[in-house]
């Protein structure tokens, strides 16, 4: 099947505004950004691939592999543009999706609107059947009722069906039986069942996940079919793989079957990018900071492994407030995403305080300084007024920014409201957004029991390098790295992703009554499932297995991940498991408790091929102090005054060059700000390593 040149790889990331394409051949990297085509996303891909191939002097047929991530599944959920979908569930539970957790995500606003259930009530159907918590049958499937239901489904004109039964994670037999009965009469319909898509306990999350999967499945399948056809038509017969939200690669077939796993695959690529940089530079404790036009994403990467989670909330409808979206149970790279980007709009609230975001001016109408009709002040406007951006050399000179327009917007919406000068308003906006992001990072670290001040920051995305220095000052972080290609970090990350697959299942075990054969059987079947995904792509490569148990004291509700070798869990080495739990618990919460029973709640197992070892970078000492004749006024947040900062072009720097702050280092896709506290040294891989002196 593989044609082309095995070492010529293309990564494609479809984002909200841009489609990023990165091509790597023989160690060389060529990248581009083209506008996302909402009508036919594959057209932008072809356009981008044409550009990078031309730049690299490579023929289309020489491409050996395309790795692809897309926000298509996410957007389809956010914009509610999916297939006509029915949900079939256990009698008595028709409204789980709609009743959620029965609380209000915002306590003091009585006029909130709850996010409507993905599948409307009229499209939710019930079947008489029931399992108990142990997976024993309490009620058999009512066959007569099922037959009548299938008739209604046929008449309803549904394209896709989700099936989710109570306790199906413990026993999926009834879900399979109903699926088979429907397929027998409606062979062409697309069906997703919860015991396959997300076999985790807690009905709300599992049902949401299977419904989301069913809802996007026809859309994604059609898109992937078109994409492959278009590529083949252009002579690219190479394999195409997809990035999933857990940061690994899956085949097109699996992506089409479980498209919900493509949610947030772009940001996951960014984290893989950060992971690779961390490995190259030998940074064991890394916080990745990815800031774009609308949101900022923050993730912890320790010992070159990103933090992962079992669930994720997509499509938050109210100021990114927790609970205002839809919880999806899939293994994801765990990150905090907050409404803080270049386009985030600043305003003054009733307490006469400056607020920033989460509403974004996006690319249309854009920040006031873009001169495309945006009237509200944004973070980009504030950065411009504070001298962080060059009005005449933005986006590699493709755009001219208007300082008067930025100043006017800041004065009108901020300064005039609370009696601040334009400069003070701009400072306030930046300070508030920086504080928002650093708070998010700090809380995220603390939730994992970590002290973030000992971490190194790796920053990318258009806005990351602009704000990194100030974030580091606020977080007490001593150094940050701006890798080459930072502007298309996620697409580059795709090229580095391992062939990996993670599966998560509920499986409760008390340590004092550890049933080794039962656990071993569960772990074996999980390993078999994950291996199936990986070997579908790379049948010969060696694989490694990572196993994590989610544990707690019996009676608690919050579990913590405990990672041990597969064999330890498989053999049921209770003493070792208990000891590791105590160690982790102490790390999280200060001290372990003596007395209560310890239990395992659920399991995660990940199979992956080894990551290509990144060439490690020997630290380069500063050999040449670079100074520039060009300088401009830059606001310094620590002294709260304007200082003169030199302006240096990144393209002219070579390894060993060092630039002392205050300085502004420019490149086409982003700008790095060095405050007076930082000095950057160019490393042998072209990365900027900024350290506090």
């Amino acid at each position, binding site marked *: 099947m593989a044609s082309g040149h095995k070492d010529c790889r293309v990564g494609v990331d479809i984002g909200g505004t841009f489609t990023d394409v990165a091509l790597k051949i023989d160690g060389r990297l060529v990248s581009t950004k083209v506008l996302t085509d909402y009508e036919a996303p594959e057209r932008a891909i072809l356009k981008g691939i044409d550009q990078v191939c031309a730049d690299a002097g490579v023929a289309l047929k020489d491409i050996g592999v395309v790795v692809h991530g897309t926000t298509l599944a996410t957007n389809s959920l956010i914009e509610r543009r999916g297939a006509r979908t029915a949900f079939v569930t256990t009698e008595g539970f028709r409204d789980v999706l709609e009743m959620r957790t029965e609380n209000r995500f915002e306590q003091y606003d009585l006029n909130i609107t709850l996010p409507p259930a993905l599948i409307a*009530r009229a499209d939710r159907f019930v079947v008489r059947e029931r399992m108990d918590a142990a997976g024993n049958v309490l009620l058999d499937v009512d066959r007569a009722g099922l037959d009548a239901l299938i008739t209604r489904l046929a008449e309803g004109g549904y394209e896709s069906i989700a099936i989710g039964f109570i306790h199906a994670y413990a026993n999926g037999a009834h879900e399979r039986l109903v699926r088979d009965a429907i397929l027998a009469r409606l062979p062409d319909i697309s069906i997703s069942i919860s015991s396959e898509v997300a076999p985790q306990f807690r009905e709300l999350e599992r049902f949401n996940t299977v419904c989301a999967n069913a809802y996007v499945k026809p859309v994604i399948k059609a898109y992937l079919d078109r994409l492959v056809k278009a590529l083949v038509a252009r002579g690219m017969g190479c394999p195409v793989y997809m990035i999933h939200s857990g940061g690994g690669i899956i085949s097109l077939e699996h992506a089409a079957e479980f498209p919900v796993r493509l949610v947030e695959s772009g940001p996951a690529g960014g984290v893989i990018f950060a992971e690779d940089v961390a490995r190259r530079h030998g940074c064991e404790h890394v916080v990745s900071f990815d800031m774009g036009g609308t949101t900022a994403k923050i993730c912890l990467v320790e010992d070159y492994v990103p933090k992962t989670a079992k669930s994720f909330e997509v499509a938050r409808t109210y100021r990114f407030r927790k609970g205002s979206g839809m919880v999806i149970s899939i293994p994801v790279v765990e990150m905090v995403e907050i409404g803080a980007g270049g386009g985030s709009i600043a305003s003054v609230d009733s307490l006469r305080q400056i607020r920033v975001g989460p509403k974004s001016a996006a690319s249309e109408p854009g920040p006031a300084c873009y001169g495309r009709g945006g009237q509200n002040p944004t973070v980009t406007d504030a950065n411009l007024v504070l001298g962080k951006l060059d009005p005449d050399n933005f986006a590699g000179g493709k755009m001219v920014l208007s300082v008067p327009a930025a100043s006017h917007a800041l004065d009108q919406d901020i300064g005039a409201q609370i009696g601040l000068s334009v400069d003070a308003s701009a400072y*306030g906006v930046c300070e508030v957004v920086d504080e928002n992001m650093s708070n998010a990072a700090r809380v995220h670290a603390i939730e994992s029991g970590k002290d973030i001040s000992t971490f190194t920051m790796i920053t990318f995305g258009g806005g990351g390098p602009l704000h990194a220095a100030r974030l580091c000052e606020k977080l007490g972080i001593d150094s940050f790295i701006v890798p080459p290609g930072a502007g298309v970090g996620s697409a580059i990350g795709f090229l580095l992703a391992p062939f990996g697959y993670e599966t998560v299942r509920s499986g409760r075990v008390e340590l004092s009554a550890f049933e080794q054969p039962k656990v071993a059987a569960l772990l074996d079947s999980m390993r078999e499932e994950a291996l199936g995904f990986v070997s579908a792509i790379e049948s010969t490569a060696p694989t490694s297995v990572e196993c994590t148990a989610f544990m707690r004291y019996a009676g608690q509700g919050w579990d913590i991940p405990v990672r041990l070798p597969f064999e330890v869990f498989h053999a049921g080495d209770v003493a070792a498991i208990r000891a590791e739990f105590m160690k982790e618990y102490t790390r999280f919460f200060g001290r372990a408790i003596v007395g209560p029973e310890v239990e395992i709640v659920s399991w995660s197992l990940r199979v992956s091929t080894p990551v290509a070892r990144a060439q490690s970078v020997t630290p380069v000492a500063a050999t040449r102090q670079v100074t520039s004749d060009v300088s401009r006024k830059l606001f310094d947040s620590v002294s709260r005054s304007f200082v003169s900062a030199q302006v240096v072009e990144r393209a002219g720097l070579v390894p060993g060059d060092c630039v002392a702050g205050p300085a502004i280092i420019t490149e086409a896709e982003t700008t790095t700000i060095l405050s007076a506290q930082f000095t950057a040294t160019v490393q042998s891989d072209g990365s900027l390593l900024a350290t506090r002196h």
Partner: protein
Amino acid sequence: MQDTFVDIHMQVMWNRLISVVEEQAQALIRTAFSTSVREAGDLSAGIFDVHGRMLAQAVTGTPGHVNAMAESVGHFITDIGPGNIHEGDVYITNDPWKGTGHLHDITVVTPSFLDGRLIGYFASTAHVVDVGGRGFGPDANEVYEEGLFIPIMKLFDAGRENDTLLHIVRNNVREDDKVVGDIFALAACNDAGHNRLVDMMREFDMADLEHLGAFILGHSGRATRERLAALPQGQWTNSLRLDGYDEPVELHATLTIKGDTVHVDFSGTSGPSRFGINVPLVYVMAYACYGIKCIVAPEIPNNFGSLEPFSVSAPDNCILNAQRPAPVSVRHVLGHFVPDLVLGALHKALPDRVPAEGAGALWNLHMSLRPQPGQTGRNAEILMFNSGGTGARPTLDGMNATAFPSGVHTMPVEATEHVGPVIIWRKELREGSGGAGQYRGGLGQTIEIEAATGYKLQFSAMFDRIDNPARGRAGGQAGAPGSVALDDGTRLRGKGKQDVPPGRKLVLNLPGGGGYGDPAQRPAEWQEYDTSNGYVPAGQAGTGA
């Protein structure tokens, strides 16, 4: 210009202080044992200055806790004695009158020291699984029957654990590991807050919280008073009739808006009950403030400054001003109706701003499972939080099966069935239960529960709005009343301990919210949406429940 930078700096530090208490609350959720805390968010956490004034609170599930806890730190300072406060101390109480209204809530306060100097206090409250006595329920006639009463005292004295107290607790409660575990979780979350505060103060080079505290309280107080001063001035009243335990209860409120203050007096309200539905005034105050704040100043953070312009009063012989030793175990039932009561009066001052009445009190269901005679198995105590519908808003429908004014979560059915031997056969919206109106009231829900084979089920009812449904507003109709019954139709009581005979299911129909505006004004396409989705059974549209 330097002053404006200082203001921005103060704002940044204020936000940081809020994240300190959010983190304190997260530490509690993650280490707590009782489901009410860890799954449902029935807790609170906050930071106070050296004078006992609340500076910041975590936005958690329970306004009743937070606003009540705001008062409690002052009691701790007085009772412990300012000369007796040392580094390493931790204080505790579950005094309903000095804490948050019933014995099941334990409040822990920790003084915070920086470089040997007292800089403030961290306080946290959690609803524990048991405090002995009769267990959670309204059946007692005096607070003595409701469980162990811990007056304000030291849990740690300069770092030394009060093992006498813990010994007494362990021997007086049903699930001692969980209760003691929760007490330690409270102490640990205060420590987590303290550690983060010290980091923050070192970073910003602060010696104390005086300056920042003055900024926070000044800003919040001013902003709140500006809002109140802009309201219509005058006096308005409202009454609400509820089921009570054995006889109906009449709640009455007189709302006075004068200058930049709001006062609510509850004279005219029914006298105390012989059963545990009485409410300490501190809890009434908490919910009265919460309700009014939602309408007039929703985005101003809760602290001493923003709460100070509000006050309440009630005569001593009043069910909303329980006097010791009155029983108060399920004080939340009437407490949760205080916002509906007070907002009904506020509606007369501010038409078009206030929602219709809703289901109000949570339908908390406490279940005890025991093996049938001759069977083996384990005992289990299970608590479920369930919500009816909220009242329709002036421009929006009410919310289906959603808590108001409480902010707690429900627990997943699959999690509840893991906790003990029950089968929940149904937990689903109750069709047709929302009050008709231009905007429809939120639907209640129907729950059907049975003991697993081999077990018997006893439950403690603490439900209201069975005889007194949520009233509509501005021409909207009432929501459906609730009901408690067996699946064979036998009616059960709305309050108190009762048995579900073997083989029978308990059926709870939770009340719906009231409608807003004339039902005839509801657009036809919304009516069609309601019937096609079964929110309103065909034929019932436009006629109300």
